[in-house]
């Protein structure tokens, strides 16, 4: 059973077709990295998977439950999107923490006011998560008082506090100074070791190679190649992939 499956996804902005017949799925415990040149549609793919963009056609399903169905050539979304939203979390490139909430409130507010869970119980879980991140002493700090790396770690635990089945990352380290990327990548690696299901859009090729079970290479709105990271990074036969990766290995 796939946690996420996207089948024949098409998405255009006006005349610009950004996703062309994209199909892939993610199994439980799998870590999938998506790489590709700028403008290839990686972010759009994640935004479609998380309902921030609506697709033009195709089928998105979580746990084999379809979110979209094709009625003729029209793509219809399920009514209960919020039920599906519980399946996933999304970590943004620029964190998007709520600046007027403390770290703890950023984490606790959605589980309490969206899922209606018990406050004390959620608080205990969140403190546990913060401890794991080494951020328990920053629970009462505001996001502006944290470094970029700390903010991104908080945004990861904010997503984890909702207990998602799958976590999406859109270039989680791109907004960070180089010396701060390590602490965020380390957290993602630890999540991978705990068998968290993740889809990571990244330009950190070394990291993608080390952490993922599968790599997807996108270009021009298409999945050009996908497979074992050693194969894709090590000895791909695809000319386009080779050319793209050679820019990184120089």
């Amino acid at each position, binding site marked *: 059973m796939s946690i996420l499956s996207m089948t024949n996804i098409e998405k255009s902005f006006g005349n610009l077709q950004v996703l062309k017949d994209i199909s892939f799925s993610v199994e439980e415990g799998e870590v999938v990295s998506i790489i590709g040149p700028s403008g290839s549609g990686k972010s759009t793919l994640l935004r479609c998977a998380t309902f921030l963009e609506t697709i033009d056609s195709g089928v998105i399903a979580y746990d084999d439950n379809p979110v979209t169905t094709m009625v003729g050539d029209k793509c219809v979304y399920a009514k209960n999107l919020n039920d599906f*939203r519980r399946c996933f979390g999304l970590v943004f490139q620029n964190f*998007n923490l709520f600046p007027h909430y403390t770290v703890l409130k950023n984490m606790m507010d959605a589980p309490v006011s969206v899922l209606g869970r018990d406050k004390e119980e959620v608080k205990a879980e969140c403190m546990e998560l913060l401890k794991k991140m080494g951020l328990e002493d920053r629970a009462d700090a505001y996001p502006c008082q944290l470094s970029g790396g700390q903010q991104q770690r908080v945004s990861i635990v904010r997503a984890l506090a909702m207990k998602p089945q799958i976590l999406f990352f859109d270039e989680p380290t791109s907004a960070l100074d180089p010396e701060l990327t390590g602490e965020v990548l380390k957290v993602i690696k630890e999540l991978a070791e705990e068998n968290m299901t993740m889809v990571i859009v990244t330009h950190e090729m070394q990291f993608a190679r080390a952490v993922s079970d599968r790599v997807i290479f996108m270009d021009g709105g298409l999945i050009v190649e996908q497979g074992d990271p050693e194969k894709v990074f090590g000895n791909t036969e695809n000319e386009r992939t080779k050319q793209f990766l050679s820019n990184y290995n120089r």
Partner: protein
Amino acid sequence: MDLMTMILKMGEGLGKTCAIFFLTLLFSLPLGMIVALLRGSKNKIVSSVTRFFISVLRGTPLMLQLIAVTYGPYYLFHLSVSRNKLIPVVIAFAINYAAYFAEIYRSGIDSMPVGQYEAAEVLGYSKAQTFIKIILPQVIRRILPSMTNEIVTLVKDTSMAFTVSYQEMFTIGKQIANSQTSFTPFIVAGVFYYIFNAIVGFVMGRAEKKMSYYDM
């Protein structure tokens, strides 16, 4: 008439000045939010009609609007002019200020980064929760300085009520000035407004400070 009598007489009108001020805020602050939301409505007709009304209210003198609300019903429908002028005065002020506050709210709402909405959406917040819990508190923080400006203007604008002879502080002062051929009442009025606005400035400054516990 000695200065003390003058001050006391004008001071009596201060209660009515405060009534205009507080009642206007009481009605125009929430009304402005409703107007701002209508103005930003996805429905083109709703948003253009709202925009038109805002432009009329901002593009014509408050004085004219006061006269229109107070005497309009008499001229148009031959209804008697309301005995308590506070009602038409507050209606005119509240509508006029709602238009100004609406524009401030809207600029504040528009200045919010889209990422805040997206983060809330992915976490499953409803539209109402997102607005009330995530967007509004940040908007208020952002617009507080412009609100202070507008509220200071309101203090001074209460004097406009003299156009419909509502017996607030300035109207009384003007009457004394006429009957005594004295300039002193205007100086007294100026001092009253200045002190009033010093208090407004102090209160709003405290509010801004209280809300600046985080950086944006």
